């Protein structure tokens, strides 16, 4: 009994240490956004501001159409994630629970598409979207992303873990495969759906180079690309850049807190199996 308490204490101490490592940079960032530029860039550095100021925030609000950029990011990342969660569930389900010829080969090919860095396919993709006439449109921005190998892999892992009996019982009842998926499997995968939705939303929300490359209009700028204007060549506006970095994190943090109940607890209910 005593050994358990010692190891428990160790656990708590280590967790607290990691908590500190995670929280400290954020705390420093938060506090620094209220500093004057000259208090951020000085030696010796101080944690607390000498004078509190909102100048950095007002600079961000004045110079960036923040609402517009957030709306664009919501359109881009939101639609991508909605479509992707749906299509990846459908495909992931098939790879996990249906039998058809060449299943493994096709799945491995899908997996292999994850292996090429985006930087290298970016030019061919740009040309392709242009040939299709959808460059500089939201359709062109969203379409290539509405399914992802990662998502199919993720959903496949999830569906593999669901009990086989459910499927078989439904088949005996004469239900079609689409019916089984839509009426039995899809409701069960809600937590995985939400989890992947958040994964997908996060990566697209934070993507800088893809939306910058595929759109050429300030009216279609997303948030990370908009914030890039505070980090210029030779000139650095440190205060606004920090405030901008913090603002860009907020929407996702808020959404994450709100969806947490489904997110962490959710996937734990029905589980994940390879």
């Amino acid at each position, binding site marked *: 009994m005593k050994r358990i308490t010692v190891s428990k204490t160790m656990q708590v101490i280590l967790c607290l240490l990691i908590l500190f490592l995670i929280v400290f940079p954020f705390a420093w960032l938060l506090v620094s956004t209220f500093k004057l530029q000259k208090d951020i860039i000085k030696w010796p550095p101080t944690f607390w501001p000498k004078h509190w100021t909102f100048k950095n925030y007002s600079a961000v609000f004045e110079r960036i159409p923040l609402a517009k950029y957030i709306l664009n990011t919501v359109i881009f990342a939101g639609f991508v994630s909605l479509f992707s969660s749906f299509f990846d569930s459908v495909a992931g389900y098939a790879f996990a629970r*249906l039998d058809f010829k060449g299943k493994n080969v*096709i799945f491995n090919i899908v997996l292999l598409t994850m292996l090429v860095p985006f930087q*290298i396919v970016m030019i061919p993709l740009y040309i392709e979207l242009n040939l299709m006439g959808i460059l500089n449109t939201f359709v062109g921005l969203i*379409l290539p992303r509405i399914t992802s190998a990662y998502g199919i892999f993720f959903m496949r892992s999830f569906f593999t873990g669901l009990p086989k009996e459910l499927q078989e019982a439904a088949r005996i009842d004469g239900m079609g495969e689409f019916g089984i998926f839509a009426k039995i499997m899809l409701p069960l995968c809600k937590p995985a759906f939400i989890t992947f939705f958040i994964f997908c939303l996060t990566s697209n929300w934070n993507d800088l180079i893809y939306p910058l490359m595929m759109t050429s209009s300030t009216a279609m700028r997303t948030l990370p690309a908009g914030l890039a204007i505070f980090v210029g060549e030779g000139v650095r506006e440190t205060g606004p850049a920090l405030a901008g970095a913090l603002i860009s994190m907020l929407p996702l943090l808020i959404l994450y807190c709100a969806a947490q109940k489904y997110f962490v607890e959710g996937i734990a209910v029905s589980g994940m199996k390879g």
Partner: protein
Amino acid sequence: MIAAKSSFLKKAFDKDRVGYLFILPSCLIILVFSILPLLASFIIGLTDLDIFLATPNFVGLSNFQRSFADARVWNAFANTFSYVLLTVPIQLIIALVLAYWLYRPTWFNKMCRSVFYAPVLCSFTAIGIMFNLLLNSTVGYIPYVISLFTGRVDALLSDVRYAMPIIVFISIWKSFGKTMIILVAGISDIPATLYEASAIDGANRTRQFFHITLPNLLPTINFTLLTSLIGAFQVFDVVYVTTGGGPLNSTETMVQYIYYRGFSMPYELGYASSMAVELFFVIAVLVLAFKCILERKIKNIY
């Protein structure tokens, strides 16, 4: 006519074929927007195309020959491998241990899990701005705190000895939360009866971890290991926003070098693509081998 159509439909909805319908939309998108550009870049790798896309000459395998003689390619591969060997296992172990400690939904555990996940939500642009300033040797808070103990101010990111470890630290800091969350879900799914049975046999928590948790978690570990392996081989962002590959190319990774060759003067997209093909095959072999081994193990258990 109608009969033919309905029999066609019937065939399509047949139990053994309906799978194709399920994967059709995804496969179509992947074919058009991933595989086509991928094949295009494979072909570009055989030419001397630059990003102006004007005068491609077929050069055969000479790009590949060139890359074998290019010392920076070997250096970049070595750096990439050391990055992969450091981040993937460390991150997995940290995530695994924390997931095992924190999977029960108590107040403290939930709080820890949420905070550990927070860095995953941030963009590398934001993380880069934050850590560059924190680590800067003329105004940064971290060198300042270190100097209070050592009495001198050390440069961190520009020191060959520290640059790679710092990059490894930042990427683990940024992404162990995601692995942990997936593993928490996996652990929660292990039937409680298994633990109860072994507790009756007198097994302690460490023993339970190795004999129950770990084997039952293999499918989930399979997923996280493969995806983080793929991600680590393609590491770019964290290097791009911190050291940019320096000092002395000691943090230059493969994708970093590919990007440099393709997108700075003289913009050798052909050469860059040929190196991307090489990287592709290296990852493909490793990932498929890992997948085979892991999935065979999983099959043995179940």
